[in-house]
């Protein structure tokens, strides 16, 4: 005990006053002179117990320095009525008081911390007790980063895989303007950590959407100059091997000139394991609703028309592609747009389809033409060549241990929505119905997408096919084994039900205007202020196992990243 006291000295004493009493949820303590602490440092306070003492752990939310000066005017007068030069003879009495939110007590005693009880920095074991990590079985522990405190104490933060990948909870949301590629770097680090640490790691499939430049098209390559000694040390400290992803398959979009050059429409070409994908009408006819997700359809006329088209292009016997009846001549995008039954070439005008009036059909044609013909990136093709893959089929064929990277960086917004929706729909169908009895189906599929707000924007009333698809995964994925890792700059613009279903939230540096929105209501105001001061690479994580959000630090991911992406600390 004496040895412990020497190593871990008392840094202050708890303080309860008339105006600021300690409670079961919070305690204050003053700091001895010269002691430096920071928000998010984890402290241990001595606490009563039936026998001996127990320890109450708290995380510092806020620090304030108080003096005995009742007003600023008193300080002005104390300095000889405003003399700025010179030092007063006696230092005015003051102290720094820290406000800590209670994390836990090692004997489950939630009495308020009494006045004048000793406060120390928690040590590594203390931090893990504070966070409840000691109650997570080894098999469920997923290293999620490091806590680094002001006294240089470090501790590994573990998430409980049951709350990250299901079945207790699932999904992860990363938000903030923390810096170029920080959110992505963290997602990649965490996925790598999952793939190395969970028991059923070979039964996890990962689908990653590359939305920016060529950021994620080199996941299987090591960094050019290797990792720094510190990053290497951090990886190993967490019991992880700093290595690139294994068994990565890249799917790159077909471009306008791909058929002649053979080169996909991507910012860079992966070294290996890549193929092109494209969408013909046959590949898309069941997902036309996703393609028009961003179109306002208050009377659902477009929805009704899409229903008619999908039905007309499906073989009534098999449910697969097979135009029949008046749709028999429709074979590709152009024949759909320029021929019957949507368009009468003789009259040169759109035709009524079922209950949908001609004027609505004309609007649909205009919208679809813009998306798949006039403003398309090249991903829509009349007939998909043999060497160009059908993304849906490829995704449906996912196996455990595989990482599938789908590049959508160069696609238009509508095309991106189609691809993401198609992936979600395919995976959902795979786990909820048609392929769920496949033997080699991964136990879990993690889908990572940046700019989640594009696909699940905050809409109070109106929904859309893509929102419905994301909500399906967010609300039912936990039990199916489908896990969504989403990222965005502003959580306030993401659908509340999507965010609400994420059991783990990671927040990087964010502006105070953003933090004042409803989405961050679960955070203490002081924590919000601290988040607005986070430096690039630092993140605050909220996880069901932790009673309070904590600040973590993570090592640079061990795959090759573009030069501008020197992030992830």
């Amino acid at each position, binding site marked *: 005990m004496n040895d412990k006291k020497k190593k871990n000295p008392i840094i202050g004493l708890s303080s309860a006053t008339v105006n600021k009493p300690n409670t079961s949820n919070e305690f204050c303590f003053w700091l001895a*002179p010269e002691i430096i602490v920071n928000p998010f440092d984890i402290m241990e306070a001595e606490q009563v117990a039936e026998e001996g003492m127990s320890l109450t752990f708290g995380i510092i939310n806020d620090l304030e320095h108080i003096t*005995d*000066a*009742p*007003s600023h*005017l*008193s300080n002005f*007068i*104390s*300095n*000889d*009525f405003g003399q700025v030069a*010179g*030092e*007063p*003879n*006696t*230092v*005015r*009495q003051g102290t720094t008081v820290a406000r800590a939110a209670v994390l836990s007590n090692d004997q489950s005693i939630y009495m308020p911390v009494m006045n004048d009880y000793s406060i120390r920095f928690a040590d590594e074991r203390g931090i893990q007790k504070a966070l409840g990590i000691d109650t997570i079985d080894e098999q469920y522990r997923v290293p999620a980063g490091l806590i680094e405190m002001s006294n240089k104490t470090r501790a590994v933060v573990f998430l409980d895989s049951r709350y990250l990948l299901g079945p207790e909870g699932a999904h992860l949301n990363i938000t903030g303007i923390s810096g170029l590629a920080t959110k992505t770097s963290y997602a990649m680090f965490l996925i790598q950590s999952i793939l190395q640490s969970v028991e059923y790691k070979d039964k996890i499939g990962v689908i990653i959407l590359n939305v920016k430049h060529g950021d994620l098209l080199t996941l299987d390559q090591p960094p050019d100059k290797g990792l720094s000694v510190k990053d290497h040390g951090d990886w190993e400290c967490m019991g992880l091997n700093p290595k690139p992803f294994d068994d990565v398959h890249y799917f790159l979009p077909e471009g306008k000139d791909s058929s002649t050059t053979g080169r996909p429409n991507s910012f860079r070409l992966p070294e290996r394991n890549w193929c092109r994908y494209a969408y013909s009408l046959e590949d898309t006819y069941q997902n036309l609703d996703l393609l028009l997700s961003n179109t306002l359809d208050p009377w659902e006329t477009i929805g009704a028309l899409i229903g008619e088209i999908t039905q007309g292009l499906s073989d009534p016997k098999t449910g697969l592609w097979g135009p029949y009846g008046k749709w028999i001549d429709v074979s590709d995008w152009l024949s759909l747009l320029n021929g019957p039954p949507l368009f009468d070439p003789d009259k040169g005008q759109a035709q009524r389809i079922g209950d949908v009036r001609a004027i609505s059909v004309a609007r649909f044609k205009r919208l679809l033409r813009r998306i798949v013909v006039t403003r398309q990136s090249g991903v829509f093709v009349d007939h998909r060549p043999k060497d160009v893959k059908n993304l849906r089929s490829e995704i449906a064929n996912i196996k455990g241990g595989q990482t599938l990277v789908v590049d959508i960086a160069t696609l238009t917004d509508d095309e991106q929505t189609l691809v993401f929706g198609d992936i979600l729909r395919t995976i959902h169908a795979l786990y909820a119905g048609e392929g769920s009895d496949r033997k080699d189906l991964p136990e879990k599929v993690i889908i990572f997408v940046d700019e989640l707000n594009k696909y699940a924007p905050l809409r109070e009333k109106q929904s859309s096919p893509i929102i419905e698809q994301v909500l399906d995964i967010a609300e039912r994925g936990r039990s199916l084994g489908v896990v969504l890792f989403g990222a965005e700059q502003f959580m306030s613009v993401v659908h509340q039900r999507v965010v609400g279903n994420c059991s783990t939230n990671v927040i990087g540096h964010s502006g105070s205007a953003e933090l004042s929105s409803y989405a961050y209501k679960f955070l203490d105001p002081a924590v919000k202020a601290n988040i607005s001061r986070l430096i690039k690479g630092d993140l605050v994580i909220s996880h069901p196992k932790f009673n309070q959000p904590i600040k973590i630090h993570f090592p640079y991911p061990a795959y090759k990243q573009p030069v501008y992406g020197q992030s992830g600390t």
Partner: protein
Amino acid sequence: MKALTSMRGILKNLSKQVEVLSAIGGAIQDLEHPDFEEREDMAMNEEEKIFDAIHEYDPSVANPPLFRFVQPLMRGQNHFYRYFLDGSFRSYFLGTMLEHERETPVLFAQVGACLLHRKDDGSVCKIALEVRNILTLSKERISRTLWNHIENLIEDSDIKLVDLTEQDIISKKLADFDLRNKAAGKICYEMHLLESEMINKALPYLSEENWMIIDGSLLFSPTLYYLRGGEETKPVVGVSKSFRKDPQFAYGRGPKGERKSIFKLLSELDFEHRTAAFKARNGEVVFWYVRLREQKHLDYPIMGIIKGELANPSKKPIPSELLDIISQALVAERSVTPHGQDRRWHVHLYPIFLAECAVKESLLRREVVQQFLKWR
């Protein structure tokens, strides 16, 4: 709390012996009189009202001037004052004890004193802090048997029994018809007694480079007793925030001589100046006044002025140079001030204020005493 527990037992016992008119709702705190210091000054100096002897010498001038400029001497230049001592008390009226046709007020008090040391960086730390518990009532107003009984009751407790009618330098002058007023003086006397003991203990730590400021006058008998031993001036300065307003000062002789009231003298005292030192008690003590703050910042011309006192065992005039340094260092003590916390901020020295706070913080809370000290 141990003292309170004992005290409650004593009160319970006494209530069975004699009739008691208890204070309604328990103990009532006696509030301090703001002008107490001034009344004390009068009490201890009542014989002298005219001061005509300047008791300092400056080899460079034949007659020391009445006012001298004292530029602040900051801690960075010369860390002159290192120790600061102040006392405080809190007293509670418990009730009136009736024994046949006689009666006496009964008061419980806590007196305390604190000695602070100022470190090189300007921060302060506590060297000594002592609190005493006092039960005071009039011995004259009760029977010897009852007094002896009370003495027996408190024998094993850490409470001191004080006869409030016993004459002392302070309470004898504060006596009037109501013994409760006299009790305040008695308790104050006990506080000064504690301060004196602490001064005596602190003397070995002091030197020409390590001076001590004590709050209030040095004329209190036990204090002066400790400071007038030997030939050398002890490095202790008494600083009074408020002082008697009736003395007159004679300066110069013959036709040029003039007599000034204290108001006249102090109104002419400029910012960062001191008056010449006058002698009191036949030169055993010298005193002078220092203006800490500019008049323009204050409400009244004689605000911002403190009275300094120095014990003078040799009774010889004090070197002006020493008085200058003492005063210069005092002027520098004006920063920091307890402005907003004490209405005497303009004359309060912050380390003294801190010593007073330390004592007050260690005294029992009013609510605790009120609820605990009951006669049943």
